[in-house]
């Protein structure tokens, strides 16, 4: 009898231990948040205070800027406390968000990489923010049009722009001036300029003309510059195959790569590699996100300029970065909306974050604000990025994009790294894309 009792005791203990394990997990994430924004953790809150969970993907310096923003919000709102949690990169956040939604522990508000917005919206887990927008008397025209490409789903407003960027041409003007070259505006000019900038020593290339990180962004930009579309109108196939645009884009890239005019970096860590080479003058121009302007301006000692991505038939560029969305399962939607509204429209909201980080201003009042005007007067490079938005076009919006993207990466790798036949690779890609789109 006694033994049995001890057994039961041990069992209860064990189960208790298991439960404690579960608890300690949530406990540790709690600790993480308090570590990341220790400053915003105010001692004992009033009883009726609403607590909001906000997930974001900003680490490093940008993470500190987000934390500072959350702190500003908490200080100006007595009844709402936002707890920001850094959830890793965009993809990590998406994975965690999926699991959190499935287990009913999703945050109230989350940053969401724009390409994934539709996948979430399709599962009906994002709140339609149209009524809230009306209720607060904010017009939808207030937001920069070029950045709203991923905001609507089935006529619902499921996300609003937050930290948005777009690819742009970054130029080492000093190198170009040395050679008496001007900033290229078209593909032909880019080809000539980039080739002229190549330096070879003992048969090895020591300076390349231009470069771009390993990403789908830049080929997609070139596809729309050649007046192709990533997906066709009725979303049954790709829109750059039959019209020969895909062949044209990749032939152009390949031609440039062969002469050293284009340096195509290895897939892993390509953004840092490309930025590093640009800083060291090993490559004269790069296609890169506007989000790099701040870092590059600080790091380089040459005459640094930005320009529109060179055009083929038209100027065109996709957009990137993340939006902010409200989860439909949130229990504090009013408070969640207040946080989103404040970020989007309050001068103390996301504006300081935008000013410091280099992401694009996303509302009309932001663009007209004195702070932005001062910044643009001081750093015209930043204005170029915003001006380019008039040509922003996103043709890859579809629920299946994350899946198609993976196939597109394979195609890019086959062409750029393995020099596989372009037409054959595009044939395969088209077949895979159609299979995914048909599902």
């Amino acid at each position: 009898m006694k033994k049995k009792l001890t057994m039961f005791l041990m069992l209860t203990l064990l189960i208790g231990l298991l439960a404690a394990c579960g608890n300690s997990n949530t406990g540790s994430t709690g600790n993480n948040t308090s570590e990341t924004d220790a400053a915003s953790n105010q001692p004992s809150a009033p009883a009726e205070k609403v607590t909001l969970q906000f997930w974001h993907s900003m680490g490093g310096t940008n993470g500190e800027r987000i934390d500072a923003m959350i702190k500003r919000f908490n200080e100006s709102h007595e009844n709402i406390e936002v707890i920001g949690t850094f959830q890793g990169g965009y993809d990590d956040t998406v994975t965690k968000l999926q699991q959190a939604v499935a287990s009913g522990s999703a945050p109230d508000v989350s940053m969401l990489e724009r390409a994934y917005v539709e996948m979430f919206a399709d599962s009906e887990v994002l709140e339609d923010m149209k009524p809230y927008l009306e209720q607060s008397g904010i017009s939808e025209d207030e937001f920069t049009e070029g950045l709203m490409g991923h905001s609507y789903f089935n006529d619902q407003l499921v996300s609003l722009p937050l930290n948005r960027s777009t690819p742009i041409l970054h130029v080492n003007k000093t190198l170009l001036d040395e050679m008496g070259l001007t900033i290229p505006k078209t593909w032909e000019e880019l080809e000539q300029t980039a080739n002229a900038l190549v330096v070879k020593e003992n048969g090895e290339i020591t300076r390349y003309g231009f470069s771009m990180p390993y990403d789908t962004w830049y080929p997609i930009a070139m596809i729309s510059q050649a007046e192709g579309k990533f997906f066709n109108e009725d979303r049954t196939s790709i829109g750059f195959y039959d019209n020969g645009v895909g062949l044209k884009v990749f032939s152009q890239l390949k031609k440039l790569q062969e002469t050293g005019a284009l340096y195509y970096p290895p897939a892993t860590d390509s953004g840092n590699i490309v930025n590093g080479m640009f800083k060291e003058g090993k490559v004269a121009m790069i296609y890169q996100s506007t989000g790099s302007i701040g870092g590059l301006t600080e790091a380089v000692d040459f005459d640094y300029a930005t320009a529109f991505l060179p055009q083929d038939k038209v100027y065109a560029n996709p957009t990137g970065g993340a939006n902010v969305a409200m989860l439909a399962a949130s229990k504090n939607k009013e408070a969640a909306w207040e946080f989103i509204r404040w970020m989007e429209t309050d001068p103390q909201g996301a504006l300081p974050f935008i000013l410091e980080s280099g992401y694009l201003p996303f509302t009309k009042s932001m663009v007209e604000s004195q702070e932005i005007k001062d910044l643009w007067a001081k750093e015209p490079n930043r204005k170029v990025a915003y001006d380019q938005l008039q040509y922003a076009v996103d043709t890859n919006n579809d629920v299946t994009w994350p899946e198609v993207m993976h196939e597109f990466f394979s195609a890019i790798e086959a062409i750029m790294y393995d020099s596989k036949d372009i037409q054959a690779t595009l044939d395969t890609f088209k077949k895979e894309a159609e299979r995914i789109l048909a599902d």
Partner: protein
Amino acid sequence: MDKKRLGELFRPYLMIAPAMAGICLFVLYPIIFLGYLSLYDYNLMNKAKSKFIGFENFAEIFSRGDFYKSLSNTVIYTAGVVVLTLLLSLVIAVWLSKKSKFNVFVQAGIFTPHVVSIVSIALVWLWMMEPNLGFLNYVLKALGLPPSQWLQSSESALMSVILVSVWQGIGYYVLIIVAALQSISPSIYEAAALDNASKLKVFWKITLPMISPQLFFILVIMTIGSFKVFDTVKVMTGGGPNNATNTLVYYIFENRTTNIGYASATGVVLMMIIALLTFVYFRLLSRRVHYQ
């Protein structure tokens, strides 16, 4: 009296209950749920949108080129890692089996990579394998050999990943084999010496059969482990270039956000393959393994 009997009857079950609860919760339940997911076009976030599709996921798996690509990559990787590691660690172990200060030092050196996290190792090799500025190509050029593209070309990428895994794993297996070698009774060798047996013969007829249980163990453990390779691929190549290093587990990982039903079905297939492999090994090899 009756009470005592009852206690006797239930006690063993009670004793293993905590462990069983753990196994059910963390092993059986996930496996069953995996099987369940594999039959659905599953929407993780909105269960109402999930669709039961029977074996369609499996049909899709076996009709897709990229699955076969990652399967063959996994097989090549496993064969490469297992054969190379076994051969190299056997050779090194035979060399190090005599106890001397120098040998202990070398053994510690070989074992060190095993202590370091595989992620750090992968990162360091990633630098060394960088085609333009990396250390490996610098050495190759200094020796007058042609440089390799390493991870950047689909011809050499898988080989590069194998190289890192072998380098990392060898020390551990050397340790096991050395221990096995040292446990062989010296009297057997003495008898062989009296019979004037050649060194090669001693190795084939005595050493190898005597350590065969350990070799068998290593073979099984390593085959299963290599089939599940993930971390080096994730850090070093991300499955690229052009799926040249995409292995089964990484393939599952890639599909997890976009199509969890399909990923689960691939998981089931992977489980089947490993079960089959283990079964075949035990049937074929257990008869040849010498147990004392």
